[in-house]
C-alpha cells in the first residue's frame, strides 16, 4: 500500500512538472520572456520543413522561422519547432500553442477572416501542376481527356483538379492515395497516367523516378498557392515583425547583401543600406527590436536567394528554378516594400 502511495505521489509530481504554465501577453513580450520562439512546421516536406538524418530541422519554412528568431533574439537557434498536421495547424495557432506557423500554408480569404489569422509576406509562390510520362505524348493539360490521376485526398489539391477537369469539360478518374511517399510509387508503377500536386512537390517526386528524364511537368499551373507564415489576429506588432522579416530577406537579395558580405556592407555609403542594416538607427526600434535585427538575420540565416538555393534550388534534389519566386527585377513576384 505504501508503495502505491509513493507511486501516486510520483505520478502527480510528473503531471505537474510536464504541465507548463505560460501566461501569454503581447506575443513579442511573451516570446522574449520565454527565451525562445515556438514555430509550427510541417515535418514531412523536403525542402520546406523536414528533419535531416541527424534530426536537425532544414528547409525554407524552417529558415524563415530562424530568421524571425534572429530578428527577435539576435540568435537564430532560439527556436522550438512543433510539427503539426494539416488539421492541427490552425487550432494550434489559435490556442497560442505556437507563436508563428511556417508550414507551407496557402493564404486564402476564409483563413484570414473566419479563422482569425494574418498571413505575412509570401515566402514561396507555389501552384498545382501535372506530371506525366513523356511516352503519353501529351503537351498540355487540355489533352488529358479520360486520364487517371493520382492525387492526395482531403487537400485543396483534390478539389482543384476536379474543378479544372469540370471547367474544361473533360472526364477523369481519381486514384486517391493517402501517403505522399506512396503517391509517386503508384504513379511510377503505372497505376495512373498523371500525378498531380503542388509544383514544388512534383519536382521531388520526379527526382525519385527510375529515369527522371522520362517525365515532364506540363506547362499549366491550375491553382495559385501563395505560401506564407501565419500569425494570429490581434497583435499587430508581432505581425509587423514577421512580415518585415520576410521582406528583409527579399530586400537583402535586392541589395546584393548576403551572409558572406554583410560585414562589408556595413561600411556601404548608400543611406538606404545603412538604414536597412541599422548603421543609421531607427527601423529596428520602430518594430520593437534591436537596430541590428536585419544584420543578424542576414549574418546567421542569409538572404532569400541563399535560403532558396540551399533548400529547393537547382542544386538540391528538388531542382526548382526561381520562376515566380525570383525578384521583381528579374521577372518574379518577390517584391519588398521600402525600408524607410
Amino acid at each position: 500500500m505504501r508503495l502505491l502511495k509513493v507511486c501516486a505521489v510520483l505520478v502527480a509530481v510528473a503531471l505537474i512538472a510536464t504541465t507548463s504554465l505560460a501566461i501569454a501577453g503581447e506575443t513579442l513580450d511573451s516570446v522574449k520572456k520565454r527565451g525562445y520562439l515556438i514555430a509550427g512546421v510541417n515535418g514531412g516536406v523536403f525542402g520546406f520543413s523536414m528533419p535531416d538524418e541527424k534530426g536537425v530541422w532544414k528547409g525554407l519554412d524552417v529558415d524563415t522561422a530562424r530568421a524571425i528568431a534572429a530578428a527577435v533574439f539576435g540568435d537564430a537557434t532560439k527556436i522550438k519547432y512543433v510539427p503539426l498536421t494539416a488539421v492541427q495547424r490552425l487550432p494550434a495557432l489559435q490556442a497560442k500553442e505556437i507563436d508563428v506557423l511556417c508550414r507551407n500554408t496557402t493564404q486564402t480569404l476564409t483563413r484570414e477572416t473566419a479563422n482569425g489569422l494574418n498571413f505575412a509576406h509570401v515566402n514561396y509562390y507555389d501552384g498545382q501542376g501535372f506530371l506525366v510520362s513523356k511516352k503519353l505524348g501529351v503537351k498540355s493539360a487540355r489533352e488529358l481527356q479520360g486520364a487517371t490521376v493520382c492525387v492526395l485526398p482531403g487537400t485543396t489539391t483534390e478539389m482543384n483538379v476536379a474543378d479544372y477537369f469540370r471547367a474544361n469539360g473533360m472526364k477523369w478518374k481519381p486514384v486517391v492515395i493517402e501517403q505522399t511517399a506512396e503517391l509517386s510509387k503508384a504513379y511510377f508503377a503505372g497505376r495512373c497516367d498523371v500525378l498531380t500536386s503542388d509544383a514544388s512537390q512534383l519536382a521531388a517526386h520526379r527526382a525519385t523516378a527510375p529515369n527522371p528524364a522520362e517525365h515532364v511537368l506540363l506547362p499549366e499551373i491550375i491553382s495559385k498557392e501563395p505560401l506564407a507564415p501565419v500569425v494570429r489576429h490581434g497583435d499587430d506588432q508581432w505581425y509587423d515583425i514577421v512580415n518585415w522579416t520576410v521582406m528583409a530577406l527579399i530586400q537583402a537579395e535586392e541589395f546584393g547583401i548576403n551572409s558572406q558580405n554583410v560585414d562589408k556592407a556595413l561600411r556601404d555609403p548608400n543611406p538606404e543600406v545603412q538604414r536597412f542594416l541599422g548603421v543609421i538607427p531607427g527601423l529596428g526600434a520602430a518594430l520593437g527590436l534591436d537596430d541590428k535585427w536585419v544584420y543578424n538575420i542576414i549574418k546567421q540565416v542569409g538572404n532569400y536567394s541563399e535560403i532558396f538555393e540551399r533548400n529547393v534550388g537547382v542544386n538540391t534534389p528538388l531542382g526548382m528554378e526561381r520562376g515566380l519566386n525570383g525578384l521583381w527585377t528579374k521577372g518574379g513576384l518577390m517584391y519588398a516594400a521600402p525600408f524607410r
Partner: protein
Amino acid sequence: MQEVHQTTVMKPPITRVGVIRWARANLFSSVFNSFLTVVTIYFLWKIVPGLIRWAFIDSSWATTGAQCRAGGGACWSIVTKNVRFIIFGFFPYEWQWRPLLAMIILFSLLIVSRNRRYWKKWLGYLWLIGLFVMGLLLKGGLFGLPSVESTKWSGLPLTLLLSVFGLTAAYPLGVLLALGRQSRMPAIKSLSVVYIETIRGVPLISLLFMSSVMFPLFLPEGITINNILRAQVAIILFTAAYIAEVVRGGLQAISRGQYEAAESLGLNYYQKMRLIILPQALKIVIPPSVGILISAFKDTSLVVIIGLFDLLKTTQATLSDPRWMGFSVEAYIFIALIYFTGCFSMSSYSRRLERELYRGT
C-alpha cells in the same frame, strides 16, 4: 557342427519409413491435400528465390539512395543510413546515448520482472529507481546533463514511453472501473457504466484528435499542456475502458460461492477483492487482457495523426526525403520487425505466465 540359423533383418518397405512415409502421412494423405501441397510448393518455388534474391543477394546495405536505385535489389541502406533518426528522432545527436541507455534499463527491468520469483518489494523499489533514472536520462537538467525538451522525445523511446506507461496505468484503472461497474453503490456504478460505454463508443483517433485539437481551445488563455502528455492520457483512458470490460468478464466467472465464502470469513470488501476474488479473476482473463495490451501497443502508432514523431512517423519523415523516397517497403519491414518483437514477447510471456499460474493451483 551346429547349424547356424541366419536371420536376415528385413527393412520395412521404403514407403513405410523416413521422408517418404512422413510426406505421405502429412502432405499427400488425400487427393485434396496432395493438390494443396502441389499448389503451395509451386507458389513457394515462384516466390522464395525472388524474395531471397531481392532481400539478400541484390540488396544494398550502406549506399546512397541513388546507388540503391541503380542496384535494383532491396535498399536496406535507407535503414542503416537513417537508423539513428528512425530510432531516436529529434533527440540531440550527440546525446542519443541517453535514450539508448534508458531503453536498456527499461528492457533489463522488464526481463528481470519476467521471473515471478523476483516479485518482491525490492523489485518495486528497483522500478522506482529505474523510472527515475530513465526520466533523468530523457529530461536531463541534473548532474550536468543538459536539459532536453520533451518535444524532442521521438522515435522508439516515444513509442515505448506511450505504450509502457499507457499499459501500466491503464491496467489498474481498468480493474477499478470493472469493480465500480459491479458495485452496489448506484452513483459509482452508473459513473463507471457511462465512462466505459462512452469511451468504447468512440474510436481512439477521435479521442486523440479531441486531446490535441479541441482540448487546447477550451483551456484558459495561455495555458498549454504538453502534447505527449495529452496523447498519453487519451491512450490510458481508452485502454482502461477495454481492460475494464475484460476484467468484468473475469469477475463474473467467479462463482457466487467464492464471494459468499469470503464474506462468511468476515473479510471486508477490500480484503475480499484483494485476497479471494481478484487473484482468481485476473488469472482467468490473462489471454484477453494480453490481447488488449498488444493492440494498445500497436495503437500507439496512431499518434502519427496528431503530429507526434513516434517510430512510425520518424520512418515516414525519412521516406519523404527525395533521396530515399520510394524505399518504403524496406523501411516498413524494419519497423514491422520492431513491433513484432514487442508483440511477440508480450504474447509468449503471457503464455508462460498462464502455464506457471495454472501449475501453481
